[in-house]
């Protein structure tokens, strides 16, 4: 591929004392690509996403490039300005508040006195909900979040992640503890993100979910990338078999 990767990790390591959580990771993420990051508990998936989102500092010698340029002192503020957003495992929604209040939480559109420009927020939320594929007509941006299904709630969190034209969305186990239909809904949201030209890193325990949305698989095992290949015509069963192979070693 001759395109410039959106984010490129070169020799990224993270150690806690003498234990390596990540060891010499090299990874390239291209625009409009969904990468499924899979691996067992403790394989380093969370640490890797935390490094990409800037909440965890990698060891010295690690290099992170954004659109071909080396970024020094990578941190969460820099990551956010460059358009990297994380959707947290625990959704981080205030469920008694409206959808639009949640989407704009902490980044409210206000006038000079700090009063919220509701019309603008509502209109923009509506657009975002349509972008990621909210089909239900029952809910409006003013509905409170506790009226939504688990999948739709995750949709609110995903809408929030693309609010400011983010280019890379990190989804940390977005379908955990969800009913199948809800998880399917979330998968649709993720596919719509790709259609919008955004990159996605999808972290999951569930190999079938990971297979369903991915363009490329990255398997982590004990802090190392042990497999990195495009999906191609690999079936879900073959992918699961692959995973089992690595787990056995």
């Amino acid at each position: 591929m001759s395109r410039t990767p959106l984010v490129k990790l070169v020799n990224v390591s993270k150690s806690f004392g003498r234990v390596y959580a990540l060891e010499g990771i090299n990874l390239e993420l291209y625009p409009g690509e969904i990468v499924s990051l899979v691996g067992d508990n403790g394989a380093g998936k969370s640490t890797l996403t935390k490094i990409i989102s800037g909440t965890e500092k990698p060891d010295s010698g690690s290099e992170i490039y954004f659109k071909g340029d080396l970024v020094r002192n990578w941190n969460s503020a820099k990551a956010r300005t460059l358009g990297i957003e994380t959707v947290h495992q625990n959704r981080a929604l205030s469920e008694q508040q409206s959808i639009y209040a949640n989407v704009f939480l902490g980044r409210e559109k206000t006038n000079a006195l700090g009063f919220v420009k509701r019309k603008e927020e509502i209109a923009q939320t509506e657009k975002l909900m349509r972008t990621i594929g909210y089909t239900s007509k029952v809910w409006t941006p003013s509905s409170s979040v506790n009226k939504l299904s688990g999948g739709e709630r995750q949709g609110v969190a995903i809408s929030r992640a693309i609010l400011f034209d983010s280019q890379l969305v990190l989804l940390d186990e977005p379908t955990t503890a969800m009913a199948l239909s809800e998880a399917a809904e979330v998968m649709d949201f993720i596919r719509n993100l790709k259609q919008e030209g955004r990159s996605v890193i999808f972290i999951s325990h569930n190999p079938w979910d990971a297979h369903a949305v991915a363009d490329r698989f990255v398997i982590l095992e004990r802090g190392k990338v042990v497999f990195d290949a495009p999906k191609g015509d690999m079936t879900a069963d073959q992918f699961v078999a692959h995973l089992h192979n690595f787990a056995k070693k």
Partner: protein
Amino acid sequence: MSASKKLQIPEKLRPVVGASIFFFIMIIAFMITSPGVFLDFGIYTAVFLSLPLFTIVGLGLVYITVAGEIDLSFPSIIALSGLAFAWTLEQTQLNFGIAAIAAIVVGTACGYINGLLVTKLGLSSLITTLGMNFALIGLTNILNRGEVRMLSDMDGTWVRRIVVGSWGPIPAQMFWSLGVALVLGLILHRHKFGIHVHVAGDNPEAGRAMGVNIERTKTLAFVIVGITSAITAMIAILLNSTYFATMGEGYLLPVLAAVFVGGTPVTGGRGTIGGLVIGAATVVFIQVGVVASGLDGYWTSLGFGLVIVLSLLGHRWFSGRLTR
């Protein structure tokens, strides 16, 4: 659209509508049982005299309840900030501006201390403010030394006429309290800070994850209780032209009742300013009404108890899931 759909009341308005229905049923009941009193305008003037006091401090309590905390120290903040107001008036030959600043500063400081204790040290707000209620009334008594401060010199002043004079048959403080309710209502429901207050009480972790300073938000909510307590103290002193250290007594339970009767749930994350105004009116009507209708004052507490329990049941029935 079916008929039942057309009649649906927006969820946000339900607590207010519920509290209003309850209020009017109560008034009608009073009118039927003692028409001589409740069909006369005099009783309403009596209600309008004290209603603003309960309303204003109740507004602060709505903020702290929505923020997921509670403040039981406001009666003593009223006493202490009232002392600051009265003492400064005495020392400055009735300089109302300086005295008001003194009262607001004391109220703000008390709220700020509450806020720091709860957010920085992680103490329970229920116990912290219970302790502060004792500590602050103790401090008030130590400073005041049991004096009753007569401020009858201010009777003819323009400040007194503007703040607690009569605008037609209605006491001026009624309009002031509605003004404060309007401003605090706008901030709670339309301002960025109000949204953060809601989130602080609903899911503080969600707020933190999105960069909202939850500790500062809660501390400011405590400060609002302090400031509304100070405003209540000032109006009460202007009204009576007297300061006594027990002036905060009798607020604690009625004001809390007004908040909850108004439809703000104890669980945080939701609340209503309109409901508080109705709730305060309900509470004050019971106080004034029981006495005016010739019943023994002892009946007031029984009336309160019934109203609180019945109104909670009403809200539950009305909104389906309140207070659970």
